[in-house]
């Protein structure tokens, strides 16, 4: 019950600032310790307990992952484009970094289904290629109206 309340609290106070599943996924992954897999959120932990806060964040992370997997390729491209704009990085640098480092691979929840994770990674790869092709459009590859 506490975990459900904490998750609801998290959605209302923190995640409301991240309307897109991609942003929520990245935000929640950033709150997780890479060495232990434990999520940290001081505010939530003080209102509930560190354990409850961790579990609530893990649940919200899984939820964001499921939402992102269920989004179409077109939606993912849109979200990636919006996320890229929100970082204020040059699109060329952003795409080069994401293609090279593949940060999305460490952004998924620990217990994700391997197929769903592979599917998402594959969709990211195509989405990045689409964004890249828009930066350097070839004469033969003008998008259809």
């Amino acid at each position, binding site marked *: 019950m506490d975990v459900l309340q904490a998750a609801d609290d998290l959605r209302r106070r923190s995640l409301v600032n991240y309307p897109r599943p991609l942003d929520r996924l990245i935000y929640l992954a950033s709150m997780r310790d890479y060495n232990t897999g434990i999520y940290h959120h001081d505010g939530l932990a003080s209102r509930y307990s560190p354990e409850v806060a961790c579990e609530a964040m893990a649940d919200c992370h899984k939820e964001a992952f499921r939402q992102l997997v*269920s989004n179409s390729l077109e939606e993912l491209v849109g979200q990636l484009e919006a996320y890229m704009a929100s970082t204020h990085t040059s699109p060329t640098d952003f795409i080069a970094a994401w293609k090279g480092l593949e940060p999305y691979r460490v952004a998924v929840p620990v217990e994700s289904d391997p*197929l*769903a994770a592979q599917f998402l990674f*594959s969709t990211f790869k195509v989405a990045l*290629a*689409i964004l890249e092709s828009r930066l350097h459009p070839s004469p033969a*590859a003008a*998008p*259809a109206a």
Partner: protein
Amino acid sequence: MIQLILFLSLGAALLLSLGFFMRPRRAEGGSTALVHARQALSTLQGGLLPADMVARVFDRADLDYVESQGSPELQRLFLDERKRVALLWVSRVREQLVSLREFHAGSARFYAQLNPLTELSLLFDFSRLLLACRMLQVFVFLRGPYAAPRIVGATAATAAKVCNVSQESLAFLTPAYAAAGGKHAAQTARF
């Protein structure tokens, strides 16, 4: 004389078949088989067979979107990627089904009393499913992820049906079932 040999052969074959079907099932390795079966069932029901997941992997709308970008390179990349994921889906479904079939062929009867008709039906479904998976692998490999949407749908539906039967066979492992005093409670204790 020939008739006698034929009758004796037939009798021996019948006895052997009877012995095969009535043989006591071994309990050795039963816990491992149960764990594998439970994992396979969970993977199938939770990750591989949900309709939205299957629909996403084989979603034509994504292809339409990529085609609208007007780039042959993008289209090729997308089809290669989706083909890889589709093949991964089929191989994982097949792998989990093999694990479930082993459970049913081995220790399921020891733990869960399925009637012979259900067992025969399951045997038929498993054979059909594994064949369908092989066919899908060939189709997807040769013609891409959108080659056989009907086989994908039929495979997912039959696999879901088989999972339901397996779930009933494994129901005695769930705490709720044990608390309700399920008919296999004694067998659970034995396990």
